[in-house]
């Protein structure tokens, strides 16, 4: 019953295509002419040794960084440059490597912020929380409660997230990203710094999200076991270049990948 099988025959539709993207800061090239695609409904892993440009790649996809060359096509729209909130508007949500939550706010409020783009009522009403704004707030609250239920975090609903242990913070951050009902969910090392039990919980949530909501997921992860278990396809970056792309098994046996991980000089 694994999540993987159900997607083998999923539609072969490309959700996001990255073509020839090059990104440099000053003279340093972080990403060199990288191309790959993400198919609708799959779990796509991006792996590579430290400094391979993985997080930079996510930042390009989500609009934090603007590549010097190359283009990105998301849901058929091609663009070279966009801002993060535009990416969010188009349906891309993300989590961060070092949890970027609103620490002073409760779990509930944090996840509610994820609904920002789904709120349509005129800002004026929100100044006073009257009329349609009140109604809308309640509807979104219900949606958020479903996420809280889904992630099994009812007991920390009202707790300021700054006080939560790391593993739970990661879960809240996932909840906030889910609240936007994204088409593409970017997870930057969702399991970093977790113990075995927490990793298993998180893996289960990632699979369930993919399985139940059909959300396409791109994730960066260091734990090879997790990557091999979760992902349908893997793209491997090293020193900003793509060195392999394929199913977990293909990638695992690829000589370039083995060399990169063992630190063989290029």
């Amino acid at each position, binding site marked *: *019953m694994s999540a993987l099988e*159900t997607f083998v025959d999923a539609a072969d539709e490309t959700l996001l295509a990255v073509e020839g993207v090059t990104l440099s800061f000053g003279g340093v090239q972080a990403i060199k002419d990288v191309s790959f695609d993400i198919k609708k409904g799959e779990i796509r892993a991006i792996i590579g040794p430290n400094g391979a440009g993985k997080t930079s790649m996510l930042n390009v996809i989500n609009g934090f960084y603007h590549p010097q060359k190359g283009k990105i096509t998301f849901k058929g729209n091609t663009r070279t440059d966009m801002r993060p909130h535009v990416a969010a508007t188009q349906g891309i949500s993300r989590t961060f490597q070092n949890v970027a939550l609103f620490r002073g706010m409760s779990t509930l409020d944090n996840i509610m912020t994820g609904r920002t783009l789904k709120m349509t009522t005129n800002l004026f009403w929100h100044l006073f929380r009257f009329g349609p704004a009140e109604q809308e707030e309640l509807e979104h609250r*219900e949606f958020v*409660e*479903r996420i*809280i*239920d*889904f992630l*099994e975090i*009812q*007991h920390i*609903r009202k707790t300021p997230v700054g006080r939560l242990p790391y593993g739970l913070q990661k879960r809240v951050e996932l909840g906030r990203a889910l609240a936007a009902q994204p088409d593409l969910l970017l997870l930057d090392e969702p399991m970093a710094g977790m113990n*075995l*039990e927490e990793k*298993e919980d998180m893996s289960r949530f990632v699979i*369930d999200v993919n*399985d*139940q909501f059909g959300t396409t997921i791109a994730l960066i992860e260091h734990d090879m076991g997790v990557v091999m278990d979760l992902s349908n396809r893997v793209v491997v970056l090293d020193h900003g270049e793509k060195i392999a792309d394929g199913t977990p098994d293909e990638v695992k046996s690829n000589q370039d990948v083995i060399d990169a991980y063992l630190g063989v000089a290029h």
Partner: protein
Amino acid sequence: MATETAQAAGEDTFPKLLLRNAVKFADRPAIREKDLGIWQTWTWSQVLDEVRAFAVGLSALGIKAGDKVAIVGDNRPRLYWTMCAAQSLGAVPIPVYQDSVAEEMKFVLEHAGATCAVVENQEQVDKILEIRESYKAIKTIVYDEDRGLKNYNVKGLYAFEDVQAKGRAALSDGAEAIWHEQIARGQPADTAIILYTSGTTGKPKGVVLTMENTLWAARVANRFDNLTENEETIAYLPMAWVGDHIFSYAQSYECGYCVNCPESPETVVDDRREIGTTYAFAPPRVYENLITLTMVRMEDAARIKRKMFDYFLALANRVGEKILNGEPVGVTDRLLYALGDFLVYAPIKNRFGLSKVRVGYTAGEAIGPEIFRFYRSLGINLKQLYGQTEAAVYITNQPDGEIYADTVGAPLEGIEVKVDDSGEVLYRSPGVFKEYYKNAKATRETKTKDGWVHSGDAGFIDDRGHLKIIDRAKDVGHLKDGTLFPPKYIENKLKFFPNIKEAVAIGDGRDYVACMVNIDLTAVGSWAERNNVVYASYQELAAHPDVYKMVEGHVAEVNRELAAEERVAGAQIQRFLVLHKELDADDGEITRTAKVRRSFVEERYKPLIDALFNRRKSSQHIKTEVTFEDGRKGAIEGDVEIRDMTPMPVAGTNRIAAE
């Protein structure tokens, strides 16, 4: 009591009581569940509607009288309804501990001969499917929560609401009359439920309780504390435990009070506070945990707040219980106590969710007298009862106004209690179980021909007519020189310290008493943070010299207390160690109801115990295999230090003679 037990016609089974309640308490709340942050309520008439639809649906799926229906999951309304639905068809509900691994669960299902399982969620469905690979008799599986189950294509797997839909369809075709006939056929002597005891030794045994057993127990308990349909309780203990069954099902059906199902096991304290439970039931561990949390929070509080807290707790300790018991107390103390209630006691009670509790019980294991007094001194009417699965819970209860911390109360009306020559407690009542399912030998060993049941506990009845339990009959031991050695008594004293989570005392047939201690990670971790003690793991913290020093202080305190009581003065702890891992149910070291499996632990940590009784050794290397939640195995290893204690001088020589 005789008139009470001759039950009014039409009220002698739970399905019949449901029909009554649906009329008598039609619009009163019967059960609630917190879902998506909101309390959902079902009235008794709505419950009837739900149960009827589900029962008729089950019937359509082929469930019939005599079938066994396994129930697995956290406390949820639908699982409670399943109990009544099964009973209405003459089938027998078998609640199973929801955190048992597949292997444990398989034993129960196979032994009971279950053909149907109604479970909470995907996790449990997966377990049942795994069991079904080797135990093929399970034809029907019904689940409550559909998350993750949408893509399952398995024969005999149904959603709860789909079964109810089948039932509703059949009801419109005239199935209702048949259902009512089935209920009318129900007899007091019918099996109401089979509860598998978790058992500290050997395989679980299935305790068969009849309608008469459980209903009698419910009725007696409700009358004893004058419970009405206005009570609010919270159902959070395992449904497979007799306490929950009587308390959240039988007693609720008997007098119509409302049972509240928490949102998740982690939210119980908050949920209890929101509901304002009036009738509470919890094993000592729950009360201990609440104290630990409070003490830890107070140690982090500002100094002035802590001073105030300490002052008023000392006051409560001095006069609180007297006030609760209605004994005379000076005016100044009364005024101060009222002030303390405003500043300290009421906020604490509110935090615990116990502000509105009229009667609270603790049972399952002996509660530390200090813990017990703590709650009573705050003005919470906490009482002890002594019960067993085989008795449908109730054997003795503490009546209001006769609360002694060291006894478990007097026998309820209709219950006889006696102590045999070996010191074992025996009892007889209309609540006494019918038999152990498919285990005539065990039934014969436990229940005599004339209905007396061996409790397995050692105790005596004091001159006030109250029962005093010392320990498990087989656990009370003697040192080599014949000195009495009551392990639980010693362990409970240790466990009152917030820093100590679990303790195992060893001494039977030995030269002296030694002890293994588990520190409480919450309490000690918070202490470590305040004192800049750096640690990376439980093991590292447990072995820290400062932690040892702290535990040594606690052990010395216990020894001082033991020294003050002549009968146990010889059982002072002479050597102790702090275990390098937490005792864990997944490793089989404690039961699912969190009791230490003594013999297993003694076997598993034999090298440590040998070292404890070898005075030349001051540390011991050990490697312990551990099981992670997913069933994988690993190992923890390291050196464990052993500390020597100097016994306290025995105070007062002839106290017993003087009494």
